[in-house]
C-alpha cells in the first residue's frame, strides 16, 4: 500500500531531477550557451573580464571557469536551497520574480481549468440526457466551433469587443493602477475584473472538447446496466444523475483535469502575452526574448514541477476517487 506512494513519490522527484538536468545540459550545450553569450555581450560593452565573471557568477550561481560537473553541482546545491540565481533582466532574484508572478498565473489558470470542467460536466451531462435533441445538436456544434478557435484568437476578439469597442473590461494588467494588493474587497473585485477576459478566452475555447468528452462518457454510463438497475430499484432521478451518472462519467476526466492545470500553465506564455498579464508566462516570454537564462530556467522549472506535481497528485488520489483502483498501479494518468 504505502509502498506505491513511496515509489510514486520517488519517481516524481526523479522526473523533476532529470528534467532539471536535461534543461541544465540543454541550455549549456546550445551553440554559444548562456554564459558565452552573456560574456560576449558584457565584454563588448567594455566591461572588464573580472567583472564579467563576477556578474555571471551572481546571475547563475555558476562559476564560468569551472568544469561542467562542478557547475552542475553548484547549480543543484543552490537550487536545493531555493536559490535560482539572479535575473539578468530584472536584477532581482529569480525566486522573487516567480514568487510575485506565480500566484496570478495560478489564479487565472486554476480558475479557468476549474470552470472548464464544471461547464463540461454540467453541460455534457445535460446533452447526454437529451441525446439527439436540438439542444444536443446545437451544443455539440457550438462545442466544436469553440474548440476550433485557439484561445489567443478568442482572446484578441474579446479584447477588441469588450476592451476596445465596448470598453467594458480592462484588456491588460493584473490590477488597476490605483489598487494595491491587499485583502480588500476592492482588490478582489479588481483582480477578478482584470482576469475575466483571459479566463473567458481559456474557458470558452477549452471547454468545447471536454463537453463532448463528458457527453460521451455520460451517454455510455446512461446505457450501462447499473443505471438501469438503479432505475428499477426506484432511486430518485436526482440520485441517479448525481451518484450514478455524474460520478462515473467524471471519473475518466479527473486526471485530465489535473494535468490540464499543469498544461495550461505552459499555455500561459501566449495567454499572458496577449493580455499583458504579468504572470510567469509573461516573464517567461520576456526572459526568452532577452535570453535571460536564469529567469527562463527558473520559470521552466516551476512549470515542470507544477506539471509533475499535477500528475503526481492525480495518480495518488485517483485511487481514492475510483475504488476499483487499488493503489493506483493499474491506472495511471498517462
Amino acid at each position: 500500500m504505502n509502498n506505491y506512494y513511496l515509489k510514486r513519490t520517488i519517481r516524481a522527484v526523479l522526473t523533476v531531477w532529470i528534467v532539471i538536468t536535461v534543461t541544465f545540459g540543454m541550455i549549456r550545450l546550445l551553440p554559444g550557451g548562456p554564459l558565452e553569450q552573456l560574456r560576449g555581450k558584457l565584454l563588448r560593452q567594455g566591461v572588464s573580464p573580472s567583472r564579467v565573471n563576477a556578474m555571471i557568477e551572481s546571475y547563475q550561481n555558476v562559476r564560468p571557469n569551472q568544469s561542467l560537473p562542478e557547475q552542475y553541482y553548484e547549480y543543484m546545491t543552490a537550487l536545493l536551497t531555493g536559490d535560482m540565481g539572479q535575473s539578468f533582466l530584472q536584477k532581482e532574484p529569480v525566486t522573487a520574480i516567480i514568487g510575485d508572478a506565480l500566484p496570478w498565473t495560478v489564479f487565472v489558470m486554476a480558475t479557468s481549468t476549474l470552470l472548464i470542467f464544471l461547464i463540461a460536466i454540467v453541460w455534457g451531462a445535460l446533452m447526454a440526457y437529451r441525446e439527439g435533441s436540438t439542444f444536443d445538436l446545437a451544443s455539440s456544434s457550438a462545442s466544436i466551433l469553440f474548440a476550433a478557435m485557439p484561445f489567443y484568437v478568442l482572446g484578441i476578439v474579446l479584447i477588441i469587443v469588450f476592451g476596445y469597442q465596448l470598453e467594458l473590461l480592462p484588456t491588460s494588467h493584473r490590477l488597476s493602477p490605483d489598487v494595491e494588493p491587499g485583502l480588500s474587497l476592492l482588490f478582489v473585485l479588481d483582480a477578478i475584473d482584470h482576469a475575466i477576459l483571459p479566463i473567458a478566452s481559456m474557458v470558452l475555447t477549452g471547454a468545447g472538447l471536454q463537453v463532448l468528452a463528458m457527453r460521451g462518457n455520460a451517454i455510455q454510463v446512461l446505457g450501462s446496466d447499473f443505471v438501469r438497475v438503479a432505475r428499477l430499484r426506484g432511486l430518485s432521478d436526482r440520485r441517479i444523475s448525481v451518484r450514478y451518472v455524474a460520478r462515473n462519467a467524471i471519473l475518466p476526466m479527473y486526471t485530465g483535469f489535473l494535468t490540464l492545470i499543469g498544461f495550461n500553465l505552459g499555455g500561459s506564455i501566449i495567454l499572458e502575452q496577449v493580455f499583458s498579464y504579468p504572470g510567469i508566462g509573461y516573464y517567461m516570454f520576456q526572459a526568452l526574448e532577452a535570453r535571460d537564462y536564469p529567469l527562463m530556467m527558473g520559470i521552466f522549472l516551476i512549470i515542470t514541477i507544477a506539471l509533475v506535481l499535477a500528475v503526481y497528485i492525480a495518480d495518488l488520489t485517483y485511487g481514492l476517487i475510483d475504488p476499483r483502483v487499488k493503489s493506483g498501479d493499474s491506472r495511471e494518468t498517462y
Partner: protein
Amino acid sequence: MSISSDTLNESQVQDPIIRMNDVSVTYDNGTSYVLDDVSLAIERNEIIGIVGESGSGKSMLASSLLDAVPDPGQLSGSVEYRPDEEQTVEVLALEDSELRSLRWEEISMVFQGAMSSFNPTMRIKEHFIETLEAHDAVVETGLDRAHELLEDLYLEPSRILGSYPHQLSGGMQQRTLIALSLVLEPDVLVMDEPTAALDLLMQQSILLLLRELREKYDLTMVFITHDLPLVASLADRLAVMYAFELVELGPASEMIDAPAHPYTRALLNATPNLNAPLAEMRPVKGKSPAPINVPSGCSYHPRCPLDTEECRTNHPPMDSVASGHTAACFHWENARTEIPLNYAEEGANDGEWR
C-alpha cells in the same frame, strides 16, 4: 390463437400472481417483433423456468413483467399483477410513482451480469441503504434483513457490505445482487440468467440457495436461462421459448420426461449429459431466426424434421398435451416417437451416483 391459450393458462393456474396477456415487444416502429403475443400466468409461490436459445426473447419477457423494456422498445398487451384479487394492478398502465413502488417492493429483478449491476464507485452497503430509502423503508430493519439474507446466501454480511463491487468474486456478486433484490421483501423475483457467467458448481450452489430462499420468504420466482438442464431440477414449471414465442409450457418433470414440442426434444438431445449414451447426442441443426424475418406458419418449421405443408402456412396454437402441459405444435404426438430422447427412456437409471 390467443383466446385458447388464455383460457388454457387460466385453467392450469389456480392462484396466479402475475398474468401476461398477449404481450408483444416491437422495435423499429413495429417492424421487428422481439416478443410476439406471449400469454403466461405465473402461479403464486412457484418457480417457473423460462428456457430458450440466445436471442429468443427471454430477457424481453422478463423486462415486460416490470414494464422495463429497454428504449425504444414498444410494449403492448397487458400485464396484471395479482389478477384475481381486488386490488389488481395493471402494470402497463401505472403512473411513474406507482410503478416505482411496484418495482422492487412487489416484483424485483436480478439481471444477467451482476458485475455491471452495481455502481462501481459505491460500497455494497450504500446500495442497500439507498434502495431502502428510496422506498421509504426503515433503514435499520432493512439492514438487519440484508444481514440475514446475506447469511442465508452463505456470505459474511459485514465483509460484503463493506466492500466495493469489484472486490467480490462473480459468485459473491451474484448472491449479493439476489440479497439486494430481496431486501424490500418482494413477492416475485424475476431472474434473467442470474448464473450464466458462473461455473457450474457456483450455479448449482446458488440454485440450491434459491430453493431455500423460496421456502423461507414465500417467493414466486421467474428463472430465465438458456440452460435447460440447469433449471430442470429447480423449477416447478418450465416454459420454452423459440423465436420470440412460447412454444411449450408444462410441469418440469413432464417437460423433461415427455416433452411434446420437437424443438424442446431437439434441445434436450443436444445437451451434453452425464448419463446419455454418447452416440445419441445430436445437435439442433440450423439457426434460429432473427426478429425481422421470422418464418411464416410455425417459426420452427425450417429446422423441424416433422414439418409439413400445414406447418409452413399455419401458426400452430397452444395445444393441450396433458393437464397443465401445452405445446404449440401440430405434430406433437408424432414427435414423441419420431424424436426419441437420448437419456430418459433407457439411460436414466445408471445415473444414480449417490
